[in-house]
């Protein structure tokens, strides 16, 4: 007999088959093939990808140290997510446009943004620092998930400009890529972006780095099905890729971008990876996750598997690795020196970039503020 006091929730549907991520490089560094995705790179390109991974990790480590030493206000580390970022970043063509979160240091590197510009932002001496149009890399977005709407709107603009499909100059059109995380997947903005991109067949790739933790919220509190399957409900394809495999991340993103630029519409790429560090330097992950989980993911390290592959295939030798380490140290030293030399901007500089062209009201406010600032006995000593 039904008992009103013994209500139970409906059972969680069991996970379906097919959620094994696309993989081209095993954690042991073995090349494997996949029926739909593959890459055929030159030795130079393989070495290039590994070089990116090492340098990006070195940037991240130095920035984390600088924050601990009081030189940055905060830093959002990408440790563990290098392959997802470098793979997807290198899959972009020159004209493709990326909309990042605040953790896409690896993508920024691939787009040619000087890491010092990133440090300036986290040091609080600039609001961004690079020209998004020139780098085809939007400024970092702190608000969770909102950049997916910006990216979708931009992609719809690309579409309306006729920049999708074969172009008069012989190129194949442009594509847009929006970065976000598993936590953002629960945001309304992201779901709205999915709807618009799907309905308008916008040339955008939604690149979700599922690093398993939205600050302290595990993925199973965000979704009851694998994230890539969300796409199906919105009416576009979704694919899960091993986000610690730079080759698979590259291959899957390249395919998704090509589909988009050729008018095939959006794709959701779920890069299955792990945030090895804290959410930001203000966070202490030992308070909510087990060390055993971290240890399990250490065995899937994106750099180690690529290094192992290069060694085994004799694509790189000891000299290459030694030189790369020296380059990484030099880059870190340059970042440290550059960061310590950054000076605070003049307070009135905050008026400079409110609008592309200033307004009379703004000029008035700036003049008033400057007069006020100059009214102190020690004016000039500050700034």
């Amino acid at each position, binding site marked *: *007999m*039904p*008992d*009103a006091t*013994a*209500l*139970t929730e*409906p059972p969680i549907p069991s996970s379906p088959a097919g959620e094994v991520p696309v993989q081209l490089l095993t954690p042991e560094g073995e090349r494997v093939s996949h029926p739909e995705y593959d890459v055929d790179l030159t030795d130079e390109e393989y070495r290039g990808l590994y070089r990116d991974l090492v340098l990006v990790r070195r940037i991240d*480590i*130095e920035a984390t*140290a600088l*924050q*601990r*030493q*009081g*030189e940055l*206000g*905060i830093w959002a580390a990408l440790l563990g997510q290098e392959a997802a970022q470098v793979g997807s970043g290198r899959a972009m063509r020159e004209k493709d446009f990326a909309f990042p979160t605040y953790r896409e240091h690896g993508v920024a590197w691939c787009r040619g943004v000087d890491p010092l510009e990133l440090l300036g932002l986290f040091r609080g001496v600039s609001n961004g620092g690079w020209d998004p149009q020139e780098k085809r890399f939007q400024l970092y977005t702190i608000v969770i998930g909102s950049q997916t709407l910006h990216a979708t709107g931009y992609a719809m603009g690309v579409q309306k400009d006729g920049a999708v499909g074969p172009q008069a100059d012989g190129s194949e059109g442009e594509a847009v890529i929006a970065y976000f995380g598993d936590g953002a997947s629960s945001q309304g903005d992201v779901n709205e972006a999915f709807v618009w991109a799907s309905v308008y067949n916008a040339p955008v790739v939604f690149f979700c780095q599922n690093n398993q933790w939205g600050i302290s919220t595990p993925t199973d509190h965000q979704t009851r099905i694998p994230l890539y399957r969300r796409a199906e409900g919105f009416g576009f394809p979704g694919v899960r890729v091993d986000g610690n495999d730079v080759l698979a991340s590259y291959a899957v993103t390249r395919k998704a971008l090509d589909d988009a630029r050729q008018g095939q519409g959006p794709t959701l790429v779920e890069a299955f990876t792990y945030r090895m560090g*804290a959410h930001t*330097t*203000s*966070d*202490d992950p*030992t*308070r909510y996750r087990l060390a055993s989980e971290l240890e399990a993911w250490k065995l899937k390290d994106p750099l180690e598997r690529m290094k192992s592959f290069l060694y085994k295939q004799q694509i790189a030798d000891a000299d290459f690795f030694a030189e790369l380490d020296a380059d990484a140290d030099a880059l870190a030293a340059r970042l*440290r020196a550059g960061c310590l030399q950054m000076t605070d901007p003049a307070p009135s500089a905050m008026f400079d970039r409110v609008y592309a062209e200033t307004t009379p009201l703004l000029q008035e406010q700036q003049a008033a503020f400057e007069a006020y600032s100059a*009214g*102190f*006995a*020690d*004016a000039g000593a500050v700034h």
Partner: protein
Amino acid sequence: MSRLQDFRLPDLGEGLTEGEILSWSVQVGDTITLNQVIVEVETAKAAVEVPSPYAGVVTRIHAEAGQTVDVGAPIITVDTDPTAAPLDVPAPAGSDRAQEDLALTEMVPRPPEDDAGPQGALIGEVGANGRTATLVGYGPRSVTAKRRPRVDAPAAPAPAGASPAAPPPAPARVSAQQVGQSAAVRAGGVTVLAKPPVRKLAKERGVDLAVLQGTGPHGTVTRADVEAVVARTGAAAPELRSAPEPAPSYDTAARETRVPVKGVRKHTAAAMVASAFTAPHVTEFLTLDMTPTMDLRSRVQAMPEFAGVKVSPLLFVAKALLLAVARNPQINSSWDEDAQEIVVKDPVNLGIAAATPRGLLVPNIKDADQLSLVELARALQSLAETARDGRTSPSDMAGGTITITNVGMFGVDNGTPILNPGESAILCFGAVRPMPWVVDGEVVVRQVTSLSLSFDHRVVDGQLGSQFLADIGRVLSDPATALVWA
């Protein structure tokens, strides 16, 4: 750049003011490299390993493990050029070094015994070092908020607007300021502790909290303290006393919750109204000794055929009802108002009233009279699970011919059920309890229950209804009857 570099404790996480040294991984004399982890520091947010910004030899560690250090205070000094000439440890007086040391001394955090002020301070109190204890850690120092001097500021710090003719402005201003602030800071700067409603009461009654000695925990001023002062002094702002706030009227509506009627609730309401006001209900009752059925239940449950099947008292009540229907087929019928006919149903589709997440539902077991006991048990179990999961479909609820409602599972004795619309009888099964019962002239404890049967008097007369209910009772009192009737 000086050879000796101090590393000052940075703000490790967005707005922190201090950190506790958990452990040092280096000591004086150690050679360290850039970014080597030197110390673990715990802040209000996280325990973090801090890397050194300098390479060299450690010459001094300023704070031991366990000490809490202000952000900005030096924690370690590193000689960044140890291969050069040795340092003069006691630097010559008047040199830069001496001045540096002096500055350092000022910045060095007090050892714990000197720092007892804030540690022992209560929330809201200002500790001996000038910092206010807050709920989480300690807020910033509140003693010296210096203003930057303005170019054209007056030479004397006389407040703007103060009359130069007034000779003693200072004390007057201080007291005015005190009253104006909150009237709740004792001399010595300690905030008076009182809950917000008590503060409001004191304000309304014109009582200065700062003059009260609180009797609550930690000297908290309580409502009683304020009321005692009011009773003693009659303190109350006159205007407040003469014009008390009107007593709030008792507003019932404000404390009601209005739930929209929809879905199953709406359907149930419509069906019950339709049934209650179209079919003239008669309800009869029967109390009976169900002990033989309860004994039988245990034996049946142990039979291999019933492995994994739930054998409930309801199963036997349902079976008894089905047997009684076979003997009194007209009970399984409905009234057709339009055709002015009584429709006697051949199949017995047995409805079971179910409390579900969606509300009251009455799914039925189709052709229940054709089922064996084990099939009936399975059907009841499946119906219950489906209803509990909220998966009961409309077809499960359509076509019922007679219904059982089991109010006994809620522990109540019985009721007068309302007919499921379109049916002519509904049986209500009450709780089964150990009760005194007369057997062979002796009072003994037996498993007793009561049944009630509501029927549509347009279709069913008292005789038929009574026979039907009595038949059910006979089977439950003596299950052997079932063999005779089957």
